[in-house]
């Protein structure tokens, strides 16, 4: 009987994920029960299959034995309404009573992820409990320890985004926290990390929405000069050693040592490290800035204006326009700059970001082909209980209370205090270095005098790092001065033409948005009638789709959309609320659509004036 049920369940799973079924079969061939736990099945008083699990001296019930039906009703009440396409994560499968209950009352379009930290429970359940109907009628992703646990993070990352985050439900099966606490905690931490990163992204987007749009549009004038990170690489013609200088609190201890690296390694500083460096008499070869709303006070030193700046098009134009030296661009995912390059038949080279100037700088150096990168001031922690180096934000940075902060392994200390944001950047460095090393010969020396340990780096005293690695003398300043534009005259003309077309592109989007609104109004009117004419309704939905496609194909749409970040979030998240039938759905779509079209028109109008002014003298 066990084999029969097992086969039925595996057949049902094959429909969705045959690879997972192969993995299960492979596992079952050599499967031996974990001697550390034993699982007994019984029937509850109301005939539900339930398990008790014995681990060590304890025997725990995973489900109560008296009235499972009532318990499930209470649980359903607690979980609340599950929206269509919202993700539900069930940590622990048990005897599948909770999973079956979910499948009964959740919309079919919702995604269920079952993370089972105990292989023995998974094997017992799929061998004894018939889940074939549930599995074949909807998508349930199983992530099982010792089979495919590495998929948990990618699945969570994919399912949890700005549209779904407020509808996400996570439920931990009773008994699992006590029995498999570490693994449950790991899963919850992954979820928390993902939610935090979504919120950081959304908050960043909302915070910078308006300045980003203005920056991109105004910075196009400087992009036209044609300097980018690939032309920089070709110009300096050197890829041995680069030093990335960040503004962590330990930078102060490294300033003397760094002087010996001048003209012996390519020194790239993050913007906040510029003041401490220049005050110590160290002029980096370039500095990187990504912040779209960077306060000018942080870079208000005259000497900074003579250092080449490397930026994405979204960086603060007010600071870029002050620079007297080269303005070197790279592609950070905001399309307008890339579209401008493509109009001249060129490609703007990309670098990863992860939201911090240090991660951007690091990615740039890797993309520029440097074989060795030395990190200085990359604390990612509150070394000496300070947030930054002296001189970065204030002449003397104050101490802060870090007693309640999370702790991570340190370079020089056993543990150092850090916070969620720094920890997310630390994780980024570790993942990036791991990936980079798989693709190329790449060495990262961490010469930060303190701070958090970064997996994949070798810690080395800065003096020794420079002595052993920074040998060849190169005059980077001279080479950068001689850097040529990536655009020839013809290319420049093409980019100018592209930019001058932007106001017209915005006017086109504005006109489409007016038509879009009219279509949504018609849909709303149709759905308010007693009888809905389905053909007409679908015809107008098709028109809406066509107009939306036209709008989104305009290169400037990305800018307009970025100014609507908060509104977009509200509209896309509201799309998960559903009405009870097609008419109700249609009304909801129409209301959202009208709002969207209205906001789109308004944003276009705001930007048209700016672009007409900025590009009129090109």
């Amino acid at each position, binding site marked *: 009987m066990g084999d029969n049920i097992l086969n039925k369940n595996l057949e049902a799973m094959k429909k969705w994920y045959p690879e997972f079924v192969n993995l299960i079969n492979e596992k079952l061939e050599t499967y031996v029960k974990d001697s550390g736990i034993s699982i007994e099945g019984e029937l509850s008083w109301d005939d539900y299959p339930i398990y008790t699990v014995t681990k060590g001296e304890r025997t725990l019930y995973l489900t109560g034995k008296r009235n499972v039906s009532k318990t499930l009703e209470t649980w359903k009440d*607690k979980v609340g309404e599950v929206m269509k396409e919202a993700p539900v994560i069930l940590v622990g499968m048990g005897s599948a009573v909770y999973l079956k209950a979910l499948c009964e009352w959740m919309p079919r379009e919702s995604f269920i992820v079952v993370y089972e930290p105990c292989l023995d429970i998974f094997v017992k359940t799929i061998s004894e409990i018939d889940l074939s109907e549930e599995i074949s009628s909807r998508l349930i992703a199983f992530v099982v320890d010792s089979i495919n646990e590495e998929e948990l993070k990618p699945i969570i990352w994919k399912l949890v985004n700005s549209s779904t985050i407020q509808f996400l439900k996570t439920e931990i099966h009773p008994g699992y926290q006590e029995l498999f606490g570490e693994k449950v905690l790991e899963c919850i931490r992954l979820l928390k990390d993902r939610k935090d990163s979504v919120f950081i992204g959304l908050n960043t987007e909302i915070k910078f929405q308006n300045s980003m749009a203005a920056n991109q549009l105004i910075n196009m004038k400087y992009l036209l000069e044609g300097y980018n990170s690939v032309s920089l690489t070709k110009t300096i013609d050197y890829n041995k050693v680069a030093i990335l200088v960040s503004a962590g609190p330990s930078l102060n201890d490294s300033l003397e040592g760094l002087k010996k690296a001048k003209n012996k390694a390519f020194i790239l500083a993050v913007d906040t490290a510029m003041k401490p460096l220049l005050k110590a008499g160290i002029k980096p070869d370039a500095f990187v800035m990504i912040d779209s709303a960077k306060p000018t006070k942080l870079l208000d030193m005259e000497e900074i204006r003579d250092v080449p700046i490397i930026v994405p098009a979204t960086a603060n134009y007010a600071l870029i326009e002050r620079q007297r030296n080269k303005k070197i661009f790279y592609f950070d995912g905001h399309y307008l700059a890339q579209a401008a390059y493509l109009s001249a038949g060129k490609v703007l080279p990309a670098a990863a970001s992860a939201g911090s100037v240090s991660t951007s700088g690091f990615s740039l150096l890797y993309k520029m082909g440097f074989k060795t990168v030395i990190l200085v001031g990359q604390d990612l922690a509150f070394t000496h209980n300070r947030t930054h180096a002296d001189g970065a934000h204030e002449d003397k940075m104050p101490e802060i209370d870090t007693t309640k902060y999370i702790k991570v392994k340190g370079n020089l200390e056993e543990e150092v205090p850090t916070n969620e944001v720094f920890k997310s950047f630390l994780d980024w460095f570790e993942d990036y270095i791991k990936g980079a090393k798989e693709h190329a010969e790449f060495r990262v020396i961490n010469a930060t005098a303190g701070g958090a340990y970064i997996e994949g780096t070798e810690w080395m005293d800065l003096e020794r790092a420079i002595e052993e690695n920074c040998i060849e003398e190169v005059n980077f300043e001279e080479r950068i001065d001689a850097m040529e534009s990536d655009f020839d005259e013809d290319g420049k003309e093409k980019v100018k033409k592209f930019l001058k077309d932007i106001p017209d592109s915005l006017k086109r989007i504005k006109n489409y948005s007016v038509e879009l609104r009219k279509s949504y109004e018609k849909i709303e009117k149709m759905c308010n009638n007693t009888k809905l004419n389905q053909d007409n309704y679908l015809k107008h939905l098709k028109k809406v789709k066509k107009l939306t496609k036209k709008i989104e194909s305009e290169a400037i749409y990305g800018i307009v959309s970025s100014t609507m970040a908060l509104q977009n979030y509200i509209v896309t998240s509201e799309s998960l609320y559903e009405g009870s039938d097609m008419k109700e759905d249609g009304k909801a779509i129409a209301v959202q659509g009208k709002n969207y079209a209205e906001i789109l028109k308004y944003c276009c109008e705001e930007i048209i004036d700016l672009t007409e002014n900025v590009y009129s003298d090109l």
Partner: protein
Amino acid sequence: MEKLATGLLEEINKICIEYYYFNKTDGIKRIQSIQPQIMEYLEVLIQTLQKNADAEDTVNICNYINGVLEDYFEAVKNDDIVLMIDTVDYGLREVLELCIGEAD
């Protein structure tokens, strides 16, 4: 006795609601803190049944109470919140409700 039963039920309701809706897992300690009152109630109940109830009913109810107590002490021994909540919400509750509403 009704007053005792009502008081115990209120406490059990609070513990169960906090477990089900807020994932609070301190229920075992809280129930143990009212164990003396639970035992007092059960003792008086059994004595009352022995005096007034039909012999068969008394035996059935006493067997039921034994089952509840067995599960209760097993839950305490294993620190098993799932079994404890199940025992008090669906087991002990029924025993307490025997004496509520008698005066009506």
